[in-house]
């Protein structure tokens, strides 16, 4: 359990600054709040599906699409900006995941 919470916390900690940086200035607070809540929604679902054998190839586009929709509808940013935030935030966690695996 603790390892899962660590992964969740690391994901949020990594994605928050990225979302904040890519968000439009007037929407930064709502984007940061949305980033936290979006990860609370998508991370456990994606993790549970992954543990049950679903491949990243299937999960990753869904995660990005859901996060994109969340940034658009909940934070009120444009579709393009929402996609940019979702892609950039996930790119950082991808890199972190690869580094973590490389170090292990």
């Amino acid at each position, binding site marked *: *359990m603790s390892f899962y919470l660590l992964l969740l916390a690391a994901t949020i900690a990594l994605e928050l600054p990225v979302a904040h940086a890519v968000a439009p200035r007037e929407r930064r607070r709502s984007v940061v709040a949305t980033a936290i809540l979006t990860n*609370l929604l998508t991370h456990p679902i994606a993790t549970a599906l992954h*543990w049950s054998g679903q491949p990243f*190839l299937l999960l990753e586009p869904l995660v990005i699409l859901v996060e994109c929709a969340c940034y658009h509808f*909940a934070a009120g940013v444009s579709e393009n900006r929402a996609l940019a935030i979702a892609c950039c935030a996930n790119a950082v966690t*991808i890199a972190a995941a690869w580094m973590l695996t490389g170090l292990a």
Partner: protein
Amino acid sequence: MIRLVALACLLAGTPDILPPGHKGVKHELVLHVEEDLAAKWRFFAAPTAGFGVTAIEPEKPFSFSAKYGTRIWAAAPEEKPPERGDDDWFTGHPVANPPVREVSSVPISSPLARVETTCVVRSIEGGKITLEVIGETRFGEDGEPLNSYVVYMMIIIATIGGIGLGVLTARRRMQQAG
């Protein structure tokens, strides 16, 4: 927009949110044998691709492999099975394929380390052993059974996230309407 979609497609091919890769899991079987059958039969595990015969002790875990096609054989208590593969011996004895799908690997972030599946011997008739799965226990790295509270915790976290997003969306729409 096209660049962003292309970037999303690129990202889709690589792992995210969790460390990539898989780790091995030990999957063992436990055979439960009723007294009447235990008095008449002894049980052995042997691979169809490979060598080695393992005597199965009821209620004690033993390894099996889907890759090497482990099958379970029954023999009279006084019989001694061959130590290595002997087709003549094997063809004359009741046999069963374990009715279990082997779990050999899981994502590296999974807490699962070992799986123990319990099968009961229902009958031995016509050269066939009938096995039935009666239970499965999953163990973590610490050797303790995994508890379902991890799953409940994940459901609660996802629910909090979903409700929070719903509240944010509703507030934003109210602000827009107002």
